């Protein structure tokens, strides 16, 4: 029997992390060893995660391809599938198909510094790249991470943020919106674009990656451009509604481009050429 594109891998949940209000991370391991052996992916790709009888939902693979024993996904509960996923426990079996989509061209970034800009639930797609970069040691230059959320509670990967802050290769700036802090908060207070301007990463020999809510992206791009980042050195990952992941169902189309097939990774130069349908 030929394997249909829609037949998912069976994955066992081996770890559940409560990241923030309504946000969870699942660690998933392949049930069948031969599936695990055949599977590989690259930073930037995504998949269709499913719960049998509820349906499929699209998230990026939030773990790094350098960690081969598992994949992780981080999601916020919003609809039928994510609410059902949130009720799952360790040991439950999920479906996963993927990896789909294009990748961050990391091979071209050797020796370059990388700036990551993320807001809210926009960190998971970049977290995959962050760990990939860090796991590859000296391949890349200095890493700057600017991450913001509405409040301290809404920051995801809190333990990993601590770990990154201690890494000498990393400059980490975590910020919360005014009013989202508490008396013990030692990070920045303010919006992501303002924090980028304040810490002003050098644009020379540097790539920027950005993911987050549309308004944050829009204002941050202005700041990055002011700092000298050209649009073809700024990468983002788009997340339109998707059903198939393989360029057929039509849901994710932006003009004639399919986010699932032509993306989800685009340079800002490419995004500017797209109609505003994302």
């Amino acid at each position, binding site marked *: 029997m030929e394997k249909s594109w829609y*037949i998912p891998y069976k994955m066992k949940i081996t770890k559940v992390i409560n990241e923030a209000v309504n946000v969870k991370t699942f660690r998933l391991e392949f049930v069948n060893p031969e599936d695990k052996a055949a599977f590989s992916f690259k930073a930037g790709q995504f998949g269709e995660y499913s719960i049998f*009888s509820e349906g499929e939902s699209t998230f990026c693979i939030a773990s790094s391809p350098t960690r081969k024993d598992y994949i992780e996904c981080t999601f916020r509960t919003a609809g039928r599938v994510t609410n059902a996923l949130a009720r799952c426990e360790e040991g439950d*079996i999920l479906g996963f198909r993927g990896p789909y989509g294009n990748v961050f061209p990391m091979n071209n970034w050797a020796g370059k510094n990388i700036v990551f800009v993320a807001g809210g639930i926009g960190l998971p797609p970049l977290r995959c790249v962050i760990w990939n970069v860090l796991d590859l040691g000296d391949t890349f230059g200095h890493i700057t991470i600017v991450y913001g959320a509405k409040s301290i509670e809404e920051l995801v990967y809190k333990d990993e943020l601590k770990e990154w802050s201690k890494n000498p290769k990393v400059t980490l700036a975590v910020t919360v919106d005014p009013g989202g802090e508490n008396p013990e908060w030692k990070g920045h207070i303010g919006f992501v674009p303002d924090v980028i301007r304040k810490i002003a990463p050098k644009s020379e020999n540097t790539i920027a990656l950005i993911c987050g809510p549309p308004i944050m992206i829009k204002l941050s791009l202005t700041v990055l451009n002011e700092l000298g980042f050209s649009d073809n050195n700024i990468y983002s990952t788009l997340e*339109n509604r998707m*059903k198939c992941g393989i360029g057929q*169902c039509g849901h994710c189309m932006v003009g*004639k481009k399919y986010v699932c097939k032509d993306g989800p990774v685009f340079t800002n130069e490419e995004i500017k050429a797209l109609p505003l349908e994302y």
Partner: protein
Amino acid sequence: MLNKQIHYSNQQLQSWVDGLIYKGKTVIGPVKKNGVTCFSEIKNFNELILNERTVYSAKEVVLPKYDILFKFAKEKDKVFISKNENSLNNVIVIGLRPCDNEGFDYLRLFFKSDPDILQKLNTFISVTIACEKKFDGCFCEELGIDKNYSNKTDVLIKTSENGYDIYFNDRGNEILSPQASDVKPAEIKKPVPNVSIDNKVAYLKKLSEQYNSEKWKIVSMGCLGCGSCAFVCPTCTCFDVQDEGNTQNGQRLICWDACGMGLFTKHASGHNPRPSQVERRRHRIMHKFVYTQDTEGKISCVGCGRCIAACPAHLNIYNQALQILQ
């Protein structure tokens, strides 16, 4: 290539179709179901409705309204998955129109890397009826399609004096299995290539220059977002993936969807990249006449007019495209 021809009387045509069914072939053709003409399996010739354009195009032979991708069963901490097998082996689709064949031709391009669908598209035997007259709202000839001829079929039926002239290729020969003495080399007038179609296609591509035109608001004003146009269209491929079942067992389905519907693009966050009918109608018209020129090398409207007949608001996709370009 339609290289042979034969003449059948009404009675002979009926006997041939009934004979195919008798021999165990699955014959699909235009029938009336709940008052609506669509393609469905027949058990005898008299069920066929051959003098109408079907409301639903023939695409549902290959892309049904819903199809089971696989079934699943859950047991303790195990999940069992079984793929649903279906093929169009031994299937004859009769009563296609030239526009349906053009639609299948587009689907072959669109699904070029999907072996399952491609196999279905290339397996069934197609029997086409040439259109003697235009149906309400048809504009296939505007798009360079000959309503009276198709070379993308295994068998072509044209009405003639006292019956039908039937043209067929080698595959068609197998199912017709005519008496050798009755067969003649095909004498069929192939349409003269319509040179003006290239200009038409290039003209329609200029819609991309009008992407920000205010006229989109006017053409989308009547659109109810009901999706009828997509459901009856021979080239609309958009679909949804849905699960049915309970915690023990169920199935994952693939089912028709429509870009005109508000939920089609809506994110879980509530953000909608195409927030109103203006953007949705524009996407539909651009997709048919512009985008697939780049992605598949041809426009994906075949001018069958089904969407115009089905639209509760009487929107005419072709006239609207021309209206934008004026």
